[in-house]
């Protein structure tokens, strides 16, 4: 019996996506469509995940709707007893497809929105998307799916937070996730353009508190703090290899969706190994499981089983060593790396690079 059973699988079905959001957490080197797992491979992965203990399935990407086998995978997941969430831009959704997904057993849909007004929202997404998203929200509520509106927050939309919250309620959302940008993948490339000012962050917390009271009983608001402003790091996925599994489009298995940026680890693929072996025995999943790998200040810290030393990906990105304390922690000797980034946040915003296959030269801001 494994000591830790996973509860959640994030299946990144593809990296293809019609949006070009500059905050995307996908890796800058995106997986091409010909390298994606087949329908049969995904069905095997879902079955292996259920046998390991997974109960929650996130169907994500990229844009999972570009996979024509999405309904097949949803039906398979439902048959296995998984609670499934489609994480989508809603581009490519039709009324008919929404019905087919509901009939196949989809439980929950999370649609991304970029802002509370068309021009800004479409500038952030890098493509015309406003009408498609608003149409999709109406179908989803008619069909009775659980509905989450997800908005990634950053410098260019934080000043519209109150209108964003009201928009989500008007769209009929059961839940609203307001997630301040986490700096992985494309968001690292665009950090200077996306980092909110201190003033924006302080104002936003008060706005969220008031709105949570106003919408109590109608819409649940989940607010993800910008962790650079925190005193202690976030407990990433409840600890490395504790509950969470990500399978990338090409079958590599990761303990979190950003982990591929840790270039000192080798991640095994479901094409070569069973999911069970990868979860229980692979070097990458063992690397930071539990607290045996910790150094000081984590090793002797009372919070080591509260935040598990924070995010390994952030430690690697900002200190060069994934076994260091997350530099967000004020006890970290490398906290100055974060403070230096915060000091720059009050400077004028730069331009951003849009997400795309291959590194683009075009910048807009």
């Amino acid at each position: 019996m494994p000591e830790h059973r996973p509860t959640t699988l994030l299946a990144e079905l593809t990296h293809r996506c019609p949006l070009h959001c500059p905050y995307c957490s996908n890796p800058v080197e995106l997986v091409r469509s010909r390298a994606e797992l087949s329908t049969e491979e995904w069905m095997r992965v879902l079955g292996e995940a259920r046998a390991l203990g997974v109960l929650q399935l996130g169907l994500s990407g990229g844009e999972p709707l570009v996979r024509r086998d999405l309904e097949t995978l949803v039906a398979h997941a439902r048959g296995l007893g998984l609670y499934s969430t489609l994480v989508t831009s809603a581009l490519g959704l039709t009324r008919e497809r929404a019905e087919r997904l509901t009939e196949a057993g989809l439980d929950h849909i999370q649609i991304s929105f970029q802002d509370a007004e068309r021009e800004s929202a479409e500038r952030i997404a890098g493509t015309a998307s406003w009408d498609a998203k608003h149409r999709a929200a109406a179908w989803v509520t008619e069909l009775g799916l659980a509905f989450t509106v997800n908005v990634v927050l950053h410098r260019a939309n934080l000043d519209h937070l109150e209108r964003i919250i009201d928009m989500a309620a008007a769209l009929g959302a059961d839940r609203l996730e307001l997630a301040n940008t986490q700096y992985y993948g494309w968001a690292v490339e665009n950090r200077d353009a996306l980092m909110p000012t201190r003033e924006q962050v302080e104002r936003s917390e008060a706005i969220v508190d008031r709105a949570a009271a106003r919408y109590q009983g109608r819409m649940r608001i989940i607010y993800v703090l910008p962790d650079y402003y925190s005193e202690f790091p976030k407990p990433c996925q409840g600890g490395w290899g504790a509950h969470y599994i990500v399978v990338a489009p090409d079958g590599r298995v990761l303990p979190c969706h950003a982990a591929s940026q840790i270039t000192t680890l080798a991640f095994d693929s479901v094409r070569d190994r069973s999911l069970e072996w990868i979860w229980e025995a692979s070097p990458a999943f063992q690397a930071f499981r539990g607290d045996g790998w910790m150094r000081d200040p984590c090793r002797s810290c009372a919070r080591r089983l509260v935040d598990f030393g924070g995010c390994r990906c952030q430690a690697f990105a900002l200190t060069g060593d994934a076994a260091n304390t997350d530099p967000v922690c004020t006890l970290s000797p490398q906290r100055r790396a974060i403070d230096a980034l915060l000091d720059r946040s009050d400077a004028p915003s730069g331009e951003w690079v849009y997400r795309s296959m291959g590194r683009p030269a075009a910048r807009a801001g």
Partner: protein
Amino acid sequence: MLDGTARPVLWRRARVDFDPVRHRRVLLYPEGTILLNDTAAEILELCDGVRTVNDIADTLGARYATDVRADVVDYLSRLADRELVHDAGA
């Protein structure tokens, strides 16, 4: 806080399932999983939007020959705070 006359019902998009891997019943909802002990599962089975909190407490109290009212109110109120249980009579 749900009072004794509330008629609790599980949110329409949450569901209770049996997990053969853990040999436990589980409550599943968007982005969340709660492993249920036997008492919790029995409480949720009785949440049909018709029975009141008092009815549920009486049924389980008779089954266990002990007063479980405070536990039932406490458990359902915590689920109501998370919007997983609603009062169908409200």
